[in-house]
């Protein structure tokens, strides 16, 4: 276990309020805002003896915000050849991680103390158990952050856009190695500006060959797409996908599912079965029917998009 520690853990000693708007990318601002929220939520949970809530908050922040998104974003930045940018990302990462260790310490004191010293966040006799508990920003400090909150909202929406873009890819079984030229049709001029400035990060997370932000985009014919809060994301498939073969694959799947559905329906229509089977088994069949209906519906939509 070794993180990028060019110098002695830059940022570990940094307070949330020390970060300045001008130095940071939207993703940096997003993770710092989320960290600030997490600090407030954890402290509040402890005040109210809601230990499970606190654990959930922390787990969600560390896994679903920090690991799933920020570290992914940071990879691009850490590989960049601009030392200033790398340094700034490191500062944010260490600040977040050192705060997380402090928040986790009361629950898991041993491993956090070990990591604290392993990361060089405290000298030998500076124990984590005696480090200061993080304090969320006061309203004045939040004001000092300027556009942090707006950027955090934008990044939340960007994450949704990326999730939907990735789903489009898996719906049509496009290998992760295939680069796709996504097109984004933004919902406003402001969004268009943000997306354009963020192209590199979005392209890397979507494994795109290019990202085209086009407010006037009008696909020549039906094309796989998804609606997001930032606008519509289109996935052109020419050259990426054999439309005919994909259509056949989806139709085969649909046929199989339709058969399964028929068999479940037969069971549920059978009065004997319904009368004799345990409630649990009947419940299972009903759930299965619901699942099959949803999957069939989705396949029908995917096939329709591929056209005739």
């Amino acid at each position: 276990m070794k993180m990028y520690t060019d110098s002695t853990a830059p940022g570990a000693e940094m307070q949330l309020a020390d970060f300045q708007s001008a130095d940071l990318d939207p993703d940096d601002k997003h993770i710092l805002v989320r960290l600030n929220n997490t600090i407030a939520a954890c402290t509040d949970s402890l005040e109210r003896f809601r230990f499970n809530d606190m654990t959930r908050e922390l787990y969600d922040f560390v896994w679903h915000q920090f690991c799933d998104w920020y570290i992914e974003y940071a990879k691009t930045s850490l590989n960049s050849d601009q030392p200033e940018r790398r340094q700034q990302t490191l500062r944010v990462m260490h600040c977040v991680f050192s705060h997380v260790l402090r928040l986790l310490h009361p629950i898991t004191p041993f491993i956090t103390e070990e990591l604290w010293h392993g990361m060089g966040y405290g000298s030998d006799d500076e124990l984590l158990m005696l480090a200061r508990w993080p304090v969320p920003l006061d309203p004045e400090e939040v004001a000092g952050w300027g556009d942090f909150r707006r950027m955090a909202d934008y990044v939340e929406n960007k994450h949704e856009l990326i999730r939907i873009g990735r789903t489009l890819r898996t719906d049509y079984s496009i290998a992760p190695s295939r680069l796709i030229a996504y097109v984004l049709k933004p919902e406003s001029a402001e969004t268009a500006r943000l997306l354009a400035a963020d192209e590199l990060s979005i392209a890397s997370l979507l494994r795109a060959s290019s990202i085209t932000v086009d407010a006037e985009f009008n696909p020549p014919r039906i094309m796989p797409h998804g609606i997001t809060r930032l606008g519509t994301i289109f996935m052109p498939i020419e050259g990426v996908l054999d439309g005919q073969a994909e259509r056949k694959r989806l139709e085969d799947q649909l046929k199989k599912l339709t058969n399964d559905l028929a068999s479940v329906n037969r069971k549920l229509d059978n009065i004997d079965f319904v009368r004799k089977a345990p409630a649990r088994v009947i419940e299972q069949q009903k759930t299965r029917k619901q699942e099959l209906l949803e999957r069939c519906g989705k396949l029908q939509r995917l096939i329709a998009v591929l056209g005739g």
Partner: protein
Amino acid sequence: MTELAKNYDARAVEERWYRRWVEQGAFQADPAAAGDRYAVVIPPPNVTGILHMGHALNATIQDILVRWRRMQGCNTLWVPGTDHAGIATQNVVERDLRKKHLSRDQLGREKFVERVWQWREKYGNTITSQLKRLGASCDWSRERFTMDEGLSAAVAEVFVRLYEKKLVYRGNYIINWCPRCRTALSDEESAHVNTAGHLYYLRYPCLGGKRKEAVVVATTRPETMLGDVAVAVNPRDKRYAGLAGRRCLLPLLKRELAIIQDDFVDPEFGTGVVKITPAHDPNDFEMGRRHNLEPINVMDENGIMNELAGPYQGLDRFECRKRLLEDLTAAGLVEKVEEHTHAVGHCYRCDTVVEPRLSLQWFVRMKPLARPAIQAVKDGRIQFVPERWTKVYLDWMENIRDWCISRQIWWGHRIPVYYCRACRHEWAATRTPETCPACGVAEFDQDEDVLDTWFSSWLWPFSVLGWPARTPELAAYYPTRSLVTGAEIIFFWVARMIMAGLEFMDDIPFDRVYIHGTVRDDAGRKMSKSLGNSIDPLTVIDEFSADALRFSPRVS
């Protein structure tokens, strides 16, 4: 900066850091230091205890709170300690002795108590070393034991103060008795279990009047009839208006009984005629008092019938029930027998059926102590979390009964009451006296009984800080802040601590009572030995880590 090992060796890391924290004095509190005070007292586990998931959860919650407050910059103290656990420990040591074919009676009081101390020396640290492995950041330099010198002094002080205020008294009273442990139990120590039994309808022949006339009484414990002193009917029960003032004959013993009238008799129960056995039933005891009837105690402390049971002397109570029913049946005096399910008290330590029994015991008058303790919760100075426990607490407090505090065992704080052999003077003293304060002779006896274990733990929030001495710890850390405990000891412990704090410190002992749930298995069932679904927390620590155990307690 140390390089992080690739393979995380939890055991080595956890031992290393625990040692470091202790060596650096990071758990140690300084009453003179700055910062808001945040003190927590551990619910002292029994000295016989072995860490189970319940303890692990309880200690983890306290440790989370304490570590968090410490990081917030509070002047933090977590006091650890163990409870001498009177009956429980005595039972363990007795079991040990039995393996060596010894009994406590053979050893005698002094030798036996010595044995218990030896046992404690040898095994008493098990649970505290287990708490250390869990990571508990207790101030071990302030560890206490409910029988240590300081706490024993606090117990004596409290007893004497209550004695002088006439808030403890000695009285003949019907109490819950465990014939196995041979001691009185408090109401809370007698666990009521719904038990399938029988309701026996017995004929008591009437005297005078028509021949063969009889009253029929219903009872679940026929052997107690040997101690009957009367039968009673409700004065408004028209069926029995003609019986008033007449007498009947107690079968088998052929003793004459008065037929009395009392509003307490429930005309709906059985036939509406009840037997009155003041020495063996709490309601009959009260009724006997109202009618000036002398109780007849027919059992000894082992649940064996005594000389007053006539031909049944020497029989165990259940054997006596059997024999007596055979005799009554032969005499044609059993009218009928019905299946009957009712709540029967069981000893919470050994599960023996509790016998209500008349005996001389010490009590604390609770009503005067309860009043301010009810107020402290009603006005929000003390808050229960979750809030629903407030009602449970208040309901119990508003119906509180006197607390039977004497126990007929040897392991515990001996009651500091002395009886002069010369002038019969009785007095209480915090130290063993030299002479009788009334007549000056040196011949006197100390009361044989010891105090209920909870009589020391109800003082815990201030006794561990040095009370009755005015220590810097007491000044700095009382009142403590959060009390973390399970619901099963709200009456045994939490309520009594609130009463003791207000009585002796004139202040609440803590301001938040956090009641946590029980640990459950994946199927949502309570963990128990009998279900075989309990997880040993030490196995989890050994196989994974203390951190893993702390991170994942499943609580309901």
